[in-house]
C-alpha cells in the first residue's frame, strides 16, 4: 500500500485548562475518503483546524507525504495542498461566483505594467470547473447568494480541487442541506475522490458517512475510538460508537486500530 498523504500522530490540543484533543491519531491515503464522526463537542472541529493550520497542536506530529510539517497559519496548509471547506464560512453571498471561486488566488494579467484582475479568465475557469462538478451556471457573474446551499458547497469543493488540493477537509458539508442537495454534495465528494484526492469528511450523520466513506474514525471527548475500514463496521455500530454508549465494549472487536 502506498504511503499516507497525511498522518496525524498523537495530536493533543489544550485551550488553557481545557483539553480539547488528547492524543488523536489517524492517517489518510490518497484517493480515500475518511469519515470523521463524533457527537458535538467531540473535538472534530478542533482536530481539523489543527490539520488545516488554524490551530497549532500542543503536542504531536503531523506528517504530510511522509515529511513532518508544522503549519504556522492556514496559508501554509493551503500551500502544502490541504484545503478546508467550512460548513458555514465558505462563501460570501453578495460576491459573484467567479469572485468567490478565486478569492485569495485571483488571476492577474499585466496591462501596461499594471496588474489587473483577469475577470475573463476567472469567469471562464469558473464556468468550466463548475460544469465538471455538474452545475451549469447561468453566468459566473451571478452572486453566490442565488445558488442553493448544496451548490455553494460544490463551488467551495471545486475551488479547493482547482487550486491543487491533495487533501480536502469538509467540515459538515451536509449538515444544513436537504436530501437532494446532500446527494449532490456526496456525489461531488465521490468525483473528487476518484481524481486521487484524499477527502476528510466530517459529519455526524452515519448514513452520509456510509455512502461515501472508505474508512471511519470516531472521536469522542477528544479521543479516537478507533478507525474502521469500510465493510468492517455497520452503520448501527457506528451510531452506537458515536453516542459513546454502553455497547462500546462489545464493539471493540470490530475496530481495527483501537487507541
Amino acid at each position, binding site marked *: 500500500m502506498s504511503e499516507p498523504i497525511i498522518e496525524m500522530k498523537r495530536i493533543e490540543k489544550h485551550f488553557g485548562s481545557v483539553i480539547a484533543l488528547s492524543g488523536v491519531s489517524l492517517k489518510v491515503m490518497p484517493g480515500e475518503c475518511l469519515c470523521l464522526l463524533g457527537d458535538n463537542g467531540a473535538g472534530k472541529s478542533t482536530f481539523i483546524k489543527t490539520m488545516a493550520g488554524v490551530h497549532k497542536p500542543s503536542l504531536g506530529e503531523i506528517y504530510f507525504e511522509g515529511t513532518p510539517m508544522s503549519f504556522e497559519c492556514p496559508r501554509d496548509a493551503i500551500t502544502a495542498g490541504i484545503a478546508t471547506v467550512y460548513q458555514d464560512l465558505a462563501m460570501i*453571498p*453578495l460576491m459573484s461566483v467567479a469572485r468567490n471561486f478565486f*478569492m*485569495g488566488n485571483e488571476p492577474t494579467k499585466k496591462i501596461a505594467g499594471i496588474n489587473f*484582475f483577469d475577470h475573463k479568465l476567472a469567469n471562464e475557469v469558473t464556468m468550466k470547473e463548475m460544469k465538471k462538478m455538474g452545475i451549469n451556471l447561468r453566468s459566473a457573474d451571478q*452572486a453566490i*447568494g442565488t445558488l442553493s446551499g448544496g451548490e455553494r458547497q460544490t463551488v467551495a469543493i471545486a475551488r479547493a480541487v482547482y487550486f491543487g488540493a491533495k487533501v480536502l477537509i469538509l467540515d459538515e458539508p451536509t449538515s444544513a442541506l436537504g436530501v437532494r442537495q446532500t446527494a*449532490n454534495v456526496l*456525489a461531488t465528494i465521490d468525483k473528487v475522490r476518484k481524481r486521487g484526492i484524499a477527502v476528510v469528511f466530517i459529519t455526524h450523520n452515519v448514513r452520509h458517512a456510509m455512502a461515501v466513506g472508505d474508512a471511519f474514525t470516531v472521536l469522542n471527548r477528544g479521543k479516537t475510538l478507533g478507525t474502521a475500514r469500510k465493510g468492517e463496521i*455497520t452503520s448501527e455500530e457506528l451510531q452506537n460508537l458515536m453516542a459513546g454508549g454502553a455497547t462500546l465494549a462489545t464493539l471493540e472487536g470490530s475496530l481495527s486500530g483501537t487507541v
Partner: protein
Amino acid sequence: MKESTITQADMTAKPEEPIKTRKSTKPAESVEKTDERVKTRSSFRQALIRPELGGICGTILVFTFFLLTASDSGMFSASGVINWSVVSSQFIIIAVGACLLMIAGEFDLSVGSMIGFSGMSIALLSVTFGWPVWMAIIATFVLCMAIGALNGWLVIKTGLPSFIVTLAFLFILRGLTIFAAISTTNKTIVGGIKDAAEGDWLAPIFGGKVFTGFFQWMGDNGWIDTFERGFKKGQPVVDGIPMLMIWAIILLVFAHWLLTKTKFGNWIFASGGNAQAATYVGVPVNRVKILMFMFSAFCACVFATSQVMEFGSAGADRGLLKEFEAIISVVIGGALLTGGYGSVIGAALGAIIFGVVQQGLFFAGVESSLFRVFLGAILLFAVILNTYIRRMITGEK
C-alpha cells in the same frame, strides 16, 4: 454493510439525474440553458441590477428638480457649475475613502476630526513653526496615515467595532486640534498660509487651478462670462478648474480601478463580506483593513490640505460632521453598512447628489433649513431602492 451499500447506490444515483438538466434528453448545445427554474432575465433588467442604481436614479431626480426650479438662477452657468462641482468634489474625496473602508467592513467616524486635525497641523507647522509648506504637508500626511493605521490596528487587535474605536478618535483628534491651536497661538483659526505657501512647489498641487489658459481663452472669445469692471476686468469669472476637482477625479478613478479591476479589490470585498471566510482562503484581512483605514485618513488629509490652501487658513472646527456626510454619500451610492458590497461610482453619485442639493437649494432660493429635509428624503428613497436591488441580486425575496 448491506444496508450501507444500498445507501451508497441510492445516494450516488440521484445526481445522475441532474436537477439542472432534468428534462434534457435534448442535444448537448441546449444543456447550457436547461434549468427550467431560472427565468431568463432581459439584458436591460440585468444592466439595471447594480449597486449604483439608487445613486443614478437619485442623481437624475435631483438634476431634473433643479433644472425645473433653478435653471434661471445661474446654477447651470459656468460659475454655478463650478460652485456645486467643487462642493460635490469635496464630498467625493471623503466618500471614496469611506466607501472602500465600508466595503472592507469598517467605519471611520474620525474623518471629520481628521480634517480639522490635519488642516491645523499644516497651518501650525508652516506658519507657527516656520517649516516649508511642502514639508508641513508631507509630515501631516504621514502623521494622519499613521493615525489611520493606529485606528485600524486598534480595531483589529481589540476586536471592538470600528464604530467605537473611531468614535473615540473623533473626540481625541478634535480635542487635540483645539488644544494645539490654543496652546501655541491662542487662537482657534490660524491664517497666513497663503503667504507661507508663496512659491512652494507642493502647495499648488492642492490649492492651485488648472487649465487657466483654456478658460482665459474661452473668456477672450466671449464664450464664458468675464469680469466687466474692477482690477480683474477681462478675466473670466471661472478662471480654471480647482485642483480639488482633479483630486476627486483621480481618487475616484483610482478607487474604482482598485476595487473592481484588481486582486486587492477582491480582497476588499472579501474582507468586508466575511472576514473569517476570507482568512481561511488566505486573504490578508488585517492588512487590507488597516490599509483601508490609512486610505480613509489619506482622503481626509487631501480634503483638508485643499481646503487650507484655498482658504489660506485652518480652523479647529473644520470638517465637523463630515464623517456622516461621507457615510451618507456611500450609503446613497448603494454600499451595504455591514460591508462586502458597494460601488465607488455609487458613492461618487451620492456625493454629487449631496453637493448639488446643498448648493442647488441656495440657487433655487429655497429656505436652507429644507436642505436636511430634502437630503433625508433622498437618503430614504435611495436606501429603499438599494435594498430592493440587493434582494434581486441575491435572489432572495
